[in-house]
């Protein structure tokens, strides 16, 4: 077995939390159950990985098999990576029958003709997701197995999720190979990025709980517990305001769990406006700002701002349109003409 393959397998095993190594090796299905029985999975990881490498040596593992183990790891720990969303378009209307073999063949052919040295690995999952792992080399260098790109493609949809490695120069080639293989004509990057792959899928496949305008939810009963107070008038006002906020929040965000995004970024190129009595800046050029919101769970966080008193309800459409517009990068310019106070997002 090639020593670079051995080292790669060793490092991949080391990444896996100790309690999960056996399970992942079983999923990998490269070592027999009998072989796995010989490994002591309770010792330190360094030793476990050495034993695994030895077993792989017995089975003469090559890089192709090692790559499969890597896909398995990244499929389970997909949220460690940052995913971008791409949308493909074709001009014709016909829904062609998707042929997986044909897809793989065309994809490999396109990449190999450009870059002789690439490692391409496919793995299909139950939810119709095709995972592709590409390790990039050059005509003169072996592929770098430690910085691969991952692609997740649901063949029934025009969407592709890509977690590119640092080597961004390979992106155009990757995109080209994708459209050729899937019989599309164009591909464009959407302004949507997150660590949570499932949330991205929820957003573009519209799997989050939709907010239907025709549905009039009842005011929430018993959600907020108000402390008893002597002055009934005060409680009543507060309660109705809180209910109003909850209702507006629900209209905008829906009832179900929000897709998980980590940030939203707005490039503002609007005019600065102040109240007339403030004798301040009145330029004819935009007041250029860059605003970035970050949170482990951005949409939940934004949803809680109005109830916490930090924001007005309803929240600005710039924030509430994230899911519906399927983007978290925006460029906001002043809308010209009749309504100088409204904004346009391209």
């Amino acid at each position, binding site marked *: 077995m090639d020593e670079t393959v051995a080292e790669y397998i060793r490092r991949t095993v080391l990444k896996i939390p100790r309690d999960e190594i056996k399970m992942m090796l079983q999923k990998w299905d490269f070592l027999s159950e009998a072989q796995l029985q010989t490994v002591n999975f309770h010792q330190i990881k360094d030793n476990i990985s050495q034993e695994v490498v030895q077993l792989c040596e017995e089975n003469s593992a090559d890089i192709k098999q090692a790559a499969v183990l890597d896909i398995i790891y990244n499929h389970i720990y997909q949220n460690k990576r940052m995913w971008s969303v791409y949308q493909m378009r074709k001009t014709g209307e016909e829904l062609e029958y998707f042929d997986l073999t044909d897809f793989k063949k065309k994809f490999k052919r396109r990449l190999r003709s450009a870059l002789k040295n690439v490692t391409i690995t496919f793995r299909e999952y139950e939810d119709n997701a095709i995972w592709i792992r590409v390790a990039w080399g050059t005509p003169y260098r072996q592929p770098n197995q430690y910085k691969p790109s991952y692609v997740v493609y649901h063949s029934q949809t025009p969407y592709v999720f890509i977690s590119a490695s640092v080597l961004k120069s390979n992106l155009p080639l990757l995109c080209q190979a994708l459209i050729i293989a899937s019989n599309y004509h164009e591909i464009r990057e959407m302004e949507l990025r997150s660590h949570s792959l499932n949330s991205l899928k929820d957003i573009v496949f519209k799997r989050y709980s939709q907010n239907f305008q025709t549905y009039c939810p009842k005011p929430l009963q018993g959600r907020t517990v108000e402390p008893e107070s002597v002055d009934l008038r005060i409680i009543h006002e507060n309660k109705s305001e809180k209910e109003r906020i909850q209702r507006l929040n629900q209209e905008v965000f829906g009832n179900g769990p929000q897709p998980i995004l980590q940030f939203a970024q707005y490039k503002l190129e609007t005019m600065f406006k102040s109240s007339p009595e403030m004798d301040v800046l009145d330029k004819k050029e*935009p007041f250029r700002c860059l605003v970035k*919101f970050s949170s482990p769970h951005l949409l939940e966080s934004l949803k809680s701002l109005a109830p916490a008193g930090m924001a007005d309800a309803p929240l600005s459409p710039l924030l509430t349109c994230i899911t519906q517009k399927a983007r978290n990068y925006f460029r*906001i310019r002043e809308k010209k003409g009749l309504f100088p106070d409204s904004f346009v997002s391209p």
Partner: protein
Amino acid sequence: MAAMAVESAEDGAARTLPSLGRLSRGLPFGRAYGRLGNSPSGRLILPAPLSQESGDPQRTALLLRKAWTLYSVTPLYRFCRGRLRDYARLLGAFIAAERQKGLAVEVGVELDIKVALSSLPELQGSEQDQPAVLVQLSSRSRASPKNSEDKILWSGCFCCVYGDDLSENMPEDFTCLPLFLANGAESYMSVVGNWFQKTFDCIFRRLAISPFSLTWMVAMWTGCKVDKATSGVELVFSVPRLPQPLDISYAIHPEDAKALWDTIQKTPGEITQEEVDVFMDCLYSHFHRHFKIHLSATKLVKVSTAIASAHCDGIVKMLHSQYLSGVLMLLTELAISQIQ
């Protein structure tokens, strides 16, 4: 937390001074007045310190572009500037002893730690200020060859820039160096701090920067003239107490921020509390117009400009040599507030 006690209005007269950064050849005609933001009439900006022309700019360059953790230090008792070499030796022995006890620092690597103390006369404001004292811990691994360069493990700097309020009525035996900057591992800071506290009967305390002070800093620094604005004016807000915490970064193009500030600031060389408030209100309302979020209800945790950046935990980075002493002057004042 540096508590900003609001003192009664001393006078309504605003004084005009040359603006920050202009070298003044003679004595400045005006002095730092009151605590940061305390005097409702105004906050005066001082000219560059007298000793800027002398000294080696290289030596102050070591303060730039590093993240410094701030401390306030009470006056040092019987600190003798002529004995810096002795102190270095004693501190070195102390550190070695602590390491023997197993109390300090890096595990594994065999290190000889060398201590150096030096004076930095370039860093002082008025004639009354004590020149800064630089403490550096460097190491040479026993494994590496004899003539290899020492690696600086940790740096600390005592300084005082326009600290007259503190040093004015100080008895002879005391040396006023109220501001301490530390860069490097916390464990070294702990050992060095302990030695100074024991030896000179002083107290080190972490210096936090309140959101109030941060707004002054961002307003002041936005107004500073820089040749080419390389970085924008950024304010970072935090909303920790939500079910999911939220951070908001609000960055403004440096030219636009300065243009806004220039229309607000009425008198060059002088800033008033009202002007700072208007500046912040403008930024808040522009933000609210777009997002309907009240930034004023959140916590301002960090401000960043081409001059310097400051974090509420008391961590600053100074980026522009011309304004170095101006920034240190502000920080000295914060330190003095915490001591008194």
